[in-house]
């Protein structure tokens, strides 16, 4: 679909174009340097020993033999990482997650680590470390973990958010409740009230690049780390605090990143690499295997959800209720709360209540995954929306439009919406030619909506103008989805110069002030804002230099299309100065020309999307094929439409993978059965059709260009869209994701509509 700018009033010259990506050639030729692509003289190889048990007391770790092995330069256990967190529970959890402290809390929990001269020696050393475990009872299922008879994982966890606070520890870390109106009164007004329960399994971000870093601690205590990360500044903060270093003494440089999706916002083994380097006094390179990535880093929560919706015959929702149970792995999380905040966000529901539970289980510590928590809540909500629509005999899109949230509606978590795009998205869905494609036997269509907040936060950029007039822009947010290109375009737009004259770099932590992590779809929104302001700052300098050159007061200089000119009739004979001309003379007019900006970018614009999905279900095997898929999403303003479409497509692809096949499979023994891409089934190219996109541009009033974040929202609708399409194709409603062939066939069997007697077609 073409991109639609009927909503935007602004005229742009550079912004909105589709320039070739600056990192493309390096990436396809293998020249780009990722986390594992840095080396240092004398570097050692690190390997981590991990618990084979889901839950065990570690009674003894004997490292003596490993230390004696020739070629081993350092062995560490939690003894080498003293607790410096000073009562900061969150930090203490991170520390304990990096390396078990007396107890292994999940299969894959790090227990010890070695640095050796080569990989073989490091592996051999791991085998020589003798760990004595006392296996403890474990629990990996969210519902089981909440039961009173479940083994209690932490004796210091007392459920928060309930009054009075319990005095007995349990696995429920927190209860959150939010909403507004009178739910009971609302249900009393309803003509139909429907209740359903859903389950979603745990998925991993599945970034192709495993975690990798090169850490080097010098004998004076200063250190450097090259690492694949979404947040070099937060990695610096966390690593420095866990290792007791000054921030300024740890320089973190982010490499090219081979995907993060939230999983690279948290540290995992990086502190271990630093601790090993400190102990060995040599640079240490640590690259995780895929097995380690799955077992010990960042999956999202598995959930169990109850949802209840009451509606009148005319389609008006009178009340709605959600109860969400999210497991955060072996540590407390905020995932239930995020589920509460997002579940009903697409709709204007006067009477609503959401209750979220954060539960601890023996699984790896859950990390953010693209719009964390929202997809699961949306699976429940978007599924039941179709069920209610069918019950009252209304078209599911019309039913959504009838209740859609508009400007002025109240979000589940309190605030009143400004201009938002979900109504426009649903209308665009209705008008989309996709909706008119004829469906054949065993085929079905589903529509679903999604919401994500998007965030802003601390940002700063430096814009330096060279003496030839070309521009370097240093940003502190990592380029996870095309930010270098977008920032370059924004700088060019503001300065009035060609995009080709701007070169953007992601700066290291020693070169810029603090930047929050590239998460929450904040990169283009906040660094874009800072870039605009930095360019405007530079323009002030340029104007001042032009004034000197033309010998007029600065007030009479205007900046237009990349040139300075003096206003007023008396100055009409003066020349117009280009940026290049001003830059060339800068040595005479006061030295280097630069612009800076430090900002806490407020007012992120919320992201809304509506998706259309067509499937074909094989009634004999339960296999679901995605035939056609369309994403409609509000971008506020698409700086580089290719990248925006790429985000929509990538997010939808991940959501479809989750909807169909991706899941963590745990055995009875609490061990992960499928820690590899063979059996953890992310979609391959041939599993997906071309994902069609339509960009809406409903400007975010809080951003000079109207930008909203776009990276996350579109992972939210696919679970519901696929589930609704399967229901449309088969008449059977799936309530457990992923909706894998086995689950679908079981559901068809239960409904008596599976096709095993049908002859092959």
């Amino acid at each position: 679909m073409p991109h639609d700018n009927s909503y935007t009033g602004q005229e742009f010259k550079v912004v909105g174009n589709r320039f070739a990506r600056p990192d493309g050639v390096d990436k396809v030729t293998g020249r780009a340097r990722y986390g594992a692509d840095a080396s240092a003289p004398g570097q050692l190889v690190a390997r981590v020993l991990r618990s084979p048990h889901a839950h065990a007391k570690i009674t003894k770790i004997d490292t003596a033999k490993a230390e004696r092995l020739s070629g081993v330069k350092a062995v560490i256990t939690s003894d080498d990482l003293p607790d410096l967190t000073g009562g900061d529970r969150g930090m203490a959890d991170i520390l304990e997650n990096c390396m078990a402290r007396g107890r292994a809390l999940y299969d894959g929990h790090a227990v010890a680590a070695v640095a050796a001269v080569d990989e073989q020696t490091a592996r051999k050393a791991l085998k020589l470390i003798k760990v004595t475990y006392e296996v403890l009872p474990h629990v990996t299922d969210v519902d089981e973990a909440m039961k009173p008879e479940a083994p209690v994982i932490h004796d210091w966890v007392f459920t928060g958010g309930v009054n009075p606070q319990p005095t007995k520890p349990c696995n429920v870390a927190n209860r959150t409740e939010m909403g507004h109106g009178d739910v009971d009164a609302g249900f009393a007004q309803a003509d139909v009230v429907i209740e359903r329960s859903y389950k979603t399994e745990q998925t991993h971000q599945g970034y192709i690049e495993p975690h990798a870093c090169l850490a080097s601690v010098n004998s004076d205590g200063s250190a450097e780390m090259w690492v694949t990360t979404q947040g070099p500044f937060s990695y610096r903060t966390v690593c420095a605090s866990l290792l007791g270093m000054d921030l300024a003494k740890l320089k973190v440089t982010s490499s090219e990143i081979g995907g993060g999706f939230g999983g690279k916002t948290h540290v995992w083994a990086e502190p271990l690499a630093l601790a090993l380097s400190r102990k060995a006094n040599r640079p240490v390179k640590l690259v995780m295997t895929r097995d380690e990535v799955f077992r010990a880093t960042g999956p999202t929560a598995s959930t169990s959800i109850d949802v209840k919706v009451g509606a009148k015959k005319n389609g008006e929702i009178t009340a709605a209720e959600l109860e969400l149970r999210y497991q955060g792995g072996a540590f407390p999380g905020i995932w239930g709360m995020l589920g509460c905040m997002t579940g009903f966000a697409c709709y204007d529901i006067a009477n609503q209540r959401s209750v979220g539970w954060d539960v601890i289980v023996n699984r790896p510590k859950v990390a953010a995954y693209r719009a964390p928590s929202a997809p699961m809540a949306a699976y429940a909500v978007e599924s039941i929306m179709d069920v209610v629509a069918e019950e009252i005999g209304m078209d599911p899109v019309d039913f959504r439009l009838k209740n859609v949230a508009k400007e002025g509606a109240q979000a589940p978590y309190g605030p009143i919406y400004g201009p938002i795009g979900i109504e426009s998205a649903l209308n665009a869905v209705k008008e989309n030619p996709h909706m008119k494609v004829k469906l054949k036997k065993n085929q079905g269509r589903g529509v679903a909506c999604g919401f994500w907040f998007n965030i802003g936060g601390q940002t700063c950029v430096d814009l330096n103008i060279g003496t030839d007039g070309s521009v370097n822009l240093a940003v502190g947010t990592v380029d996870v989805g095309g930010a270098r290109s977008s920032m370059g375009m924004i700088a060019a737009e503001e300065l009035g110069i060609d995009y080709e004259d701007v070169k953007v770099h992601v700066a290291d932590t020693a070169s810029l002030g603090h930047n929050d992590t590239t998460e929450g779809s904040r990169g283009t929104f906040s660094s874009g804002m800072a870039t605009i302001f930095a360019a405007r700052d530079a323009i002030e300098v340029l104007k001042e230099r032009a004034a000197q050159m033309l010998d007029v007061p600065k007030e009479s200089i205007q900046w237009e299309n990349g040139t300075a000119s003096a206003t007023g009739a008396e100055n009409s004979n003066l020349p117009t100065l280009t940026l290049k001309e001003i830059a060339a003379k800068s040595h005479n007019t006061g030295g280097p020309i630069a612009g800076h900006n430090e900002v806490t970018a407020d007012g992120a614009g919320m992201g809304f999307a509506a998706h259309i999905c067509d499937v074909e279900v094989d009634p004999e095997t339960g296999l679901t094929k995605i035939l056609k898929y369309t994403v409609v999403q509000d971008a506020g303003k698409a700086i580089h439409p290719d990248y925006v479409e790429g985000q929509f497509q990538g997010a939808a692809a991940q959501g479809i993978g989750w909807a169909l096949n991706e899941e963590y499979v745990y055995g009875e023994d609490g061990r992960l059965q499928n820690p590899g891409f063979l059996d953890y089934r992310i979609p391959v190219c041939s599993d997906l059709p071309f994902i069609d996109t339509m960009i809406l541009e409903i400007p975010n009033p809080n951003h000079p260009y109207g930008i909203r974040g776009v990276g996350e929202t579109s992972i939210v609708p696919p679970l519901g869209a696929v589930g609704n399409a399967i229901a449309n194709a088969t008449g059977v409603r799936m309530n457990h994701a992923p909706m894998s062939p086995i689950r679908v066939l079981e559901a068809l069997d239960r409904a008596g509509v599976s096709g095993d007697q049908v002859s092959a077609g």
Partner: protein
Amino acid sequence: MRYESPATTKEAVALLSKEKGPAFVIAGGTDLLVRMKSGLVEPALLVDVKRIPAMTTIKVMQTGFRVGAAVSGAELGAHKALGKAWPGVVEATNLIGSDQIQGRCTMVGNLCNASPAADSVPALIAAGAKAAIVGKQGRRTAAVEKIITGPGSTSLAKGEVIEALTLPKSSRRTGDAYLRFTPRTEMDIAVVGVGISMTLERGIIKKARVCLGAVAPTPILVPAAADTIIGTKLDDAALAALAAACSDACDPIDDKRGTAAYRIRVAGVLARRVATIAFQRAGGAA
């Protein structure tokens, strides 16, 4: 670790027989290298067979085809005569992995890796393929169904290598097919695989072989399933009986890739589909 790439099968056998430590033939390496990388095997000797002429060619003979053990999936797919005679075998082999894997992987590697889910094996067994084996004691021939003895284990003695696989001559009245079920379209391991070959006489199935993969510790040849369609024109009753017989023959496990119940069920579904394709290929009228 030692790496050798001999020029003859005899040399390869000699190298493998002499080695005291763990010694492996390496063909495409798409199984072996993965196992080495994950630390499952630590070979003392690798004998690369990709330089042995007898192993790298496909020969068309009076009696059928002789496919060298080091012929890759991609080469197999490009061989017109073979694809015409045994489309099921070629399709099954071409299902392995992806384009990248196809450039390296071999049928014999697939066979000797001895996975219950190996894709080419049910098709080979259905087609009546035989393995030409060379060992210290000389040459012998064995039916492909006699090679795999359990997950990861084969009937090959120490030092024995498979030099080639032979496929019988196929007539215009012979058809074969292979289908597997995987949740993904590619890069996946069969949850169930079914290979069937059949020969018709005046529109009626005269001979048939049915082999199931991934539903038992080894691929299984199921004569009882073949019997359900022999003598029929593959009508609905025959297809239903075939599906039932295939499901009955399954002895699967529950694992991360599928439940036993699902495998049993889908074995029947696939058997019907595969038989229908093979029947059409053999010139049968629907």
